[in-house]
């Protein structure tokens, strides 16, 4: 274990046992008061049911099943993380829940941080707890969904790591195999050349021939490696993580750079158009009520008329190809 300068750390304050006497001693804490007690003391004091914390001046009643090992050395941090766990189980919105509104998200993050800070430092605990509860009630569904989502993320992350590790190992193995085979081939070629030269007439010929056969010997391992590389390329997990990037690449070709022409080739000026049919519709109540607007009609007609003008598909095909190549 890490040697620490203060010896107190390794001594149980209740029974005064230290690590020197019992090397495999473990310390436990209870999230009620975070007082450190050694395992045997916990067994001794709390096995008969809830009891008062043995620390002097601490009147918290503790239960054995709540005791846990301390993750962090610093008790304050341990406490804060416990609080955080509780708060974040409720306040678990992510940036996606704000539709990418960074400012709102930041504000939300700060609020959550305030809640944690208040709980941790005992400022307005009651009202903060109240806030927590009301939020939980109000957003039950969202919370559940987010918990599910984060669990899924975690799972897929782990799966992906496992997959990548496996693939790496396989690749390494194959590469080693190839290297070994190459070495063996070279050795074989050397011996073969010597063997054949002893009988053949033209040594140059023999050497060329043997070298050619070696070249033709494409090992099965190499083929496997190629297959593996292909699998790695269309790695299913890679697409999960880089989904956005990948999608852009595979999208089918469309003219107008994606169905949308940003620069209109016409100007809409309603006053110039005179269509008695539409004008009459404009005054009818039943049309207006359902959202009829004349300018939309004109706009649509003009769009239809100009559709496809100035769009040279062969050029656009070229540019997209170029960009995909580069």
């Amino acid at each position, binding site marked *: *274990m*890490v*040697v620490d300068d203060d010896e107190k750390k390794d001594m149980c304050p209740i029974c005064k046992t230290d690590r020197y006497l019992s090397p495999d001693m473990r310390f436990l804490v209870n999230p009620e008061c975070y007082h450190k007690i050694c395992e045997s003391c916990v067994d001794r004091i709390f096995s008969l049911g809830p009891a008062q914390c043995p620390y002097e001046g601490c009147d918290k009643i503790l239960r054995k099943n709540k005791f846990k090992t301390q*993750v*962090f*050395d*610093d008790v*304050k*941090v341990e406490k*804060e*993380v416990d609080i*955080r*766990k509780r708060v*974040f189980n409720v306040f678990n919105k992510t940036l996606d829940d704000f539709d990418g509104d*960074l*400012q709102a*998200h*930041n*504000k*939300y*993050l*700060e*609020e*959550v*941080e*305030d809640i944690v*800070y208040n709980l*941790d430092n005992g400022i307005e605990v009651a009202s903060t707890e109240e806030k927590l509860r009301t939020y939980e009630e109000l957003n039950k569904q969202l919370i559940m969904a987010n918990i599910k989502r984060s669990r899924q993320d*975690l799972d897929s*992350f782990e799966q992906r*790591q496992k997959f990548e590790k496996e693939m790496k190992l396989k690749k390494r193995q194959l*590469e080693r195999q190839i290297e070994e085979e190459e070495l063996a081939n070279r050795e074989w070629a050397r011996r073969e050349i010597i063997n054949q030269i002893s009988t053949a007439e033209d040594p140059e010929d023999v050497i060329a021939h043997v070298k050619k056969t070696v070249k033709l010997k494409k090992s099965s391992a190499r083929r496997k490696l190629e297959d593996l590389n292909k699998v790695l390329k269309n790695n299913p997990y890679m697409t999960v993580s880089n989904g956005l990037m990948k999608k852009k690449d595979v999208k089918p070709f469309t003219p107008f750079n994606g169905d949308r022409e940003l620069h209109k080739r016409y100007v809409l000026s309603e006053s110039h158009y005179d269509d008695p049919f539409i004008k009459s519709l404009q005054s009818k109540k039943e049309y207006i009520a359902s959202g009829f607007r004349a300018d939309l009609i004109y706009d649509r007609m003009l769009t239809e008329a100009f559709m496809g003008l100035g769009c040279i598909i062969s050029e656009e095909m070229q540019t997209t190809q170029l960009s995909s190549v580069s």
Partner: protein
Amino acid sequence: MKFYIDDLPVIFPYPKIYPEQYQYMCDIKKTLDAGGNSILEMPSGTGKTVSLLSLAVAYQTHYSEHRKVIYCSRTMSEIEKALVELESLMDYRAKELGHREHFRGLGLTSRKNLCLHPKVRKERKGTVVDEKCRRMTNGQQKRKLEQDPNANVELCDFHENLYSMEPENYVPVGVFSFEKLIKYCEERTMCPYFTVRRMISMCNIMIYSYHYLLDPKISERVSREVSKDAIVIFDEAHNIDNVCIESLSLDLTNDVLKRATKGANDLTDKIHEVRQVDSQKLQDEYEKLVNGLRAPDMLDESEEPPVESPVLSQDLLKEAIPGNIRRAEHFVSFLKRFIEYLKTRMKVLHVISETPNSFLQHLKQLTFIEKKPLRFCSERLSLLVRTLEVSDIEEFNALKDIATFATLISTYEDGFTLIIEPYEIENAAVPNPIMRFTCLDASIAIKPVFEKFSSVIITSGTISPLDMYPKMLDFETVLQESYAMTLAKKSFLPMIVTKGSDQVAISSRFEIRNDPSIVRNYGSMLVEFAKITPDGMVVFFPSYLYMESIISMWQTMGILDEVWKYKLILVETPDAQETSLALETYRKACSNGRGAILLSVARGKVSEGIDFDHHFGRTVLMIGIPFQYTESRILKARLEFLREHYQIRENDFLSFDAMRHAAQCLGRVLRGKDDYGVMVLADRRFARKKNQLPKWIAQGLSDADLNLSTDMAIANTKQFLRTMAQPTDPKDQEGVSLWNYEQLIKYQNEHQKKGDGFVVTSEEKKDSEGDVAMM
């Protein structure tokens, strides 16, 4: 002398020029014309620096673009040497042209080397000097003083005096070496460091260390103003990949974490204090953050942030600081949580190596720290420290490391790895954990340099094989060239010794290196060479560990007693001061009496940057191949990365790395054309590595010398030394390895006749090789 390369008039400060210098200049010019990168290997001791500088200056003054020159070297002494060289070049130019040109050349080095402040300069640690200087000069103190003339603040007079002057008038036009600059500034009570810093944009040529371009912590501030068309030259660049990697790597120890905890607690106290005294200040900062202001918006133009951003500027996130670390209290608790988490990770009992991603995932599960606020950690700390005016340097530095670590690990994924080693050395009983965040990809740090500048020239005496660097650093070259050395007579004798006198193969391979027969064979070789070498002799070992074990075995075998009859023995140690003492004694012993032997290590201080010219080194003996310690986790990770991403095989890289260090050691003894020396590579495995040596060494290594035994090598050496003892006529060199003006013109004319002069260069080189072989 003055001559033309194509249409470019070059003024060269010597009456004669080496053929390889001319070739070298031609190639540099070609690179600059083509506008690309190049790798050039120029033999050591053939006036590389002066040819580089004279061409660069000529190029700059002649063409109308007036492209600036940035010359990067490795150590302070090398920078100083280059500055002195430049100074004499400019003097010569003035004499030649009849007037002084309007030309500024300055060098930059750390505050530690330049500081003049009576108290600060006494500090021993460079980081402390930096911090103290920053406190006094960053403008905050000054503002305080202006508001309240009685405030208890200390300002640096040397820095304050600069305000009364225009940056153009800090120092007069001309070239200033560090010595001259410090003297000039001392007389006028000016700060040399800031003088140079503020004049960078006015300089025609800047000379500084690689770090000012490669390390993102400083490059952003120092080298930002350099224009895009500048010519960047990396000299002595054979270790440039390691510099790149170091600039993005960081180690944390328990001690750092402990101090960081203390620093974080101090921050809490300080925040508490400030809240009571002047809560407006924190509120101001907070509101600025809410409005989405970032550090650059909040700092004054000339003010330096207390914590530099450790990531490359293009990898910075361009958005507001996330909400959960905006309030000072929140941020400190965030830091504390992160430190505590790191502490728990330090408690491992076996080595762990993981990717940044899995580290972040685990971190999130345990402490609910997200990736994004981590990325802003160093910037946020910088702002907070500025607001609070923290003065404790020691603990603050630890916190800075933590923040840097946080920012790095959350910014970079590919090409980085985190390694936690619980024990310092193998089989140690007491754990001393260390957490290393290592960059594996040398190309990341250097990428902005290649992107920004159109011509980057990488050069060194030993940079073979040339095609390894473009692969590792991921760039393309327009020119790769390795120059042979033209010599009037063969003045150095490289040999590969593979067997001892008793025909037993010698090798420093780990399994057999402590074999008595091998140790004895190395020992007898040492004795034999000690007998016949005049004056100084340098011996290199692959590692300190091996050196110690072999020396103790030699002692019991009585070999050292034998050596003592002929030479004094001195040993390099990891301690810098001890080593410099040993070096001094060595030089003294070489200058008087029978000379000395220096036992040193191939990757140590002696092997890089210390010259053993003339009688200081007549023989260099390389015992074993200086491979890296292959069990090192970092090396393993790097090898794996290189294989996967750049298709460089493990063995290729290891052997490349070993050979560049071996070549670097060999190059120590030959520092000029009138110098001579014997180079012995003593390991069986060297026999197959001839083609990995730099061209100029390989050129002198005849096939007969590839597989010698000790006695044959001794016989060769005796003969070689006898020829060297013959008086030489300096006239022999002329026309072959030394050109005067007429010979240069003759050469140029010949080549013009043949059409394109440059195509024939390889043929020309063959000719000169032939000359050497014949002599």
